[in-house]
């Protein structure tokens, strides 16, 4: 990860209070197979990645299933810029891990 962006990600995601209020508004969490398909999960996965965590299969499912609709930001008491966190995390991943024209594929999972 690029260091400046990485430290921004860490700072922004560390603000999460884990209240989960964002999950009530998220259109994807209900259709995903776990909490990683919601904003609280995504934010905490990015925090984990910014602390040298691994880009696991579920981490990528979590990051790339976000629709960037920003509904979650309406309820976040910590005012985290959630869509921007996801964009930055994705671009850092793409820059460092994907070859030209390669794509991240999310499996269709039915809960």
């Amino acid at each position, binding site marked *: 990860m690029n260091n400046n962006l990485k430290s921004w990600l860490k700072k922004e995601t560390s603000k999460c209070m884990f209240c989960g*209020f964002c999950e009530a508004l998220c259109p994807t969490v209900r259709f995903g197979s776990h909490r990683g398909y919601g904003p609280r999960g995504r934010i905490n996965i990015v925090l984990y990645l910014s602390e040298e*965590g691994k880009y696991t*299969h579920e981490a990528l499912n979590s990051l790339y299933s976000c629709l960037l609709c920003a509904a979650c930001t309406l309820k976040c008491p*910590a005012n985290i810029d959630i869509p921007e966190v996801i964009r930055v995390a994705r671009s850092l991943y793409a820059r460092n891990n994907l070859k030209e024209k390669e794509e991240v594929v999310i499996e269709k999972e039915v809960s």
Partner: protein
Amino acid sequence: MERTKIARDLSRLIGKNKVSVDEALLRIYSKDPLGNVGKALAVVFPISSNDVSKVVQYAYENDIKIYAQGSSTSLAGSSLPLEAGIVLSFERMKRVLEISLVNSYVFVEPGVRIDDLNFELASKGYMFPVDPASSSVATVGGAINSGAGGMRGAKYGTMRDWVLGLELVLPDERGSIVFSGCKTLKCRQGYDIVRLIVGSEGTLALVTKAYLKITPLPETVIVALAFFPKLEDLMEAVVNIKTQRIQPYILEFLEKKTAEIAAKSINSNINIEGHMLLVGIDVNREAGSRYVEWMKKILIRHGAREVQTAESWEEAEERGLFNIRRSLFVAQSKIAREHYKNVKDAKVMLLIEDIAVPPSRLVEAVEGLKELEKKHGFITMLGGHVGDGNLHPSIGFNALDPKESKRAEEWFKDLIDLAISLDGTVSSEHGIGLAKKDALRRELDARGSVKLLEIMGNIKKVFDPKNILNPGKVV
């Protein structure tokens, strides 16, 4: 036991797509709103009571701990995987199985969110009245296990008043599935196991289905929002309202400074002219204006400077009369973050407390809290359910500063002493979990009843002889 072996074994027992040991995912299921990080070895997503039973049998045989989770919004640390173990997440068991108006119940799986349940019930003119502030995300199973309450608690009580029967998986070698309680409103089934499970925080058995009582939605609710220059006057008004042969639907209070911050945080155009009291009374529509006038008179007679009223719930929503109270949590977090905005690398934590005192002693409680604010130097945000004496004082502190963390701990200890000294209790609706074990002991000690802890410990052993369910919590 090794993580991959657990995953392999459990996958074979209940299916591969219901088990995960993905490291990033384990991290999410290891955390809680108190900032704790536990040790989930695997996350399991059962879809049936049989799945739960099989996981329990496996855990029993192999001495592995199990931590049940709904949506992990507990403010007491109740669902944290404290020691290494399996997190059993009920998020896929979220069906509303039956709504029976004639029998006054709804039959649900534990993973259904409280608000989702209420959307379904509202279409039939009914509701499930327990409404914790987190109801948009909190699950029924979590609410049962934490003994949740909410704004409507003064009228409708807490979870223990609304659970009729529970299907349970017991932590024994067979993972026995039993049903405790009844489908009927009246039920005398020996010792009351249902109410023992309510509030047991996943330490005794796993709730896999529940029959809950339901009640009709009120035709409408009249609302009055009043501001009192003097706190004593506000409390006098509360006492007067509570002795007028009505049971308010909502009776909520915010201390002046807290109300100001809350109003500012949502750009409310309502002037905060003192301590805030929000009153709602459920009425027939025809009686709305009569009740509004009556309530207004009571409030003004007791010294309210400014009273805004609405003759229906819809009108109150339209005019934003609930918004200041609803923004309490946002205000609490905002003031805490602003306070530390110039502190480099601060980890701001909110300590949201949950004491209750008999409503007649609320003035003393608020005065005591103000003294604690002076003594410890934390800005205290103060609001709560004044109708049942439940207060949620909160402070923000920098968890990375050891001195400040210590001071927060001292504030908490003094707060507990204050609640006990006023004949109150240390936990009203959030539970004991990890955070209030010592406080519980002190409360029982003050009442000469520490013996009860021993009894609770023995009850735990009877249910869970191998101590595999949520160890280290409550007792």
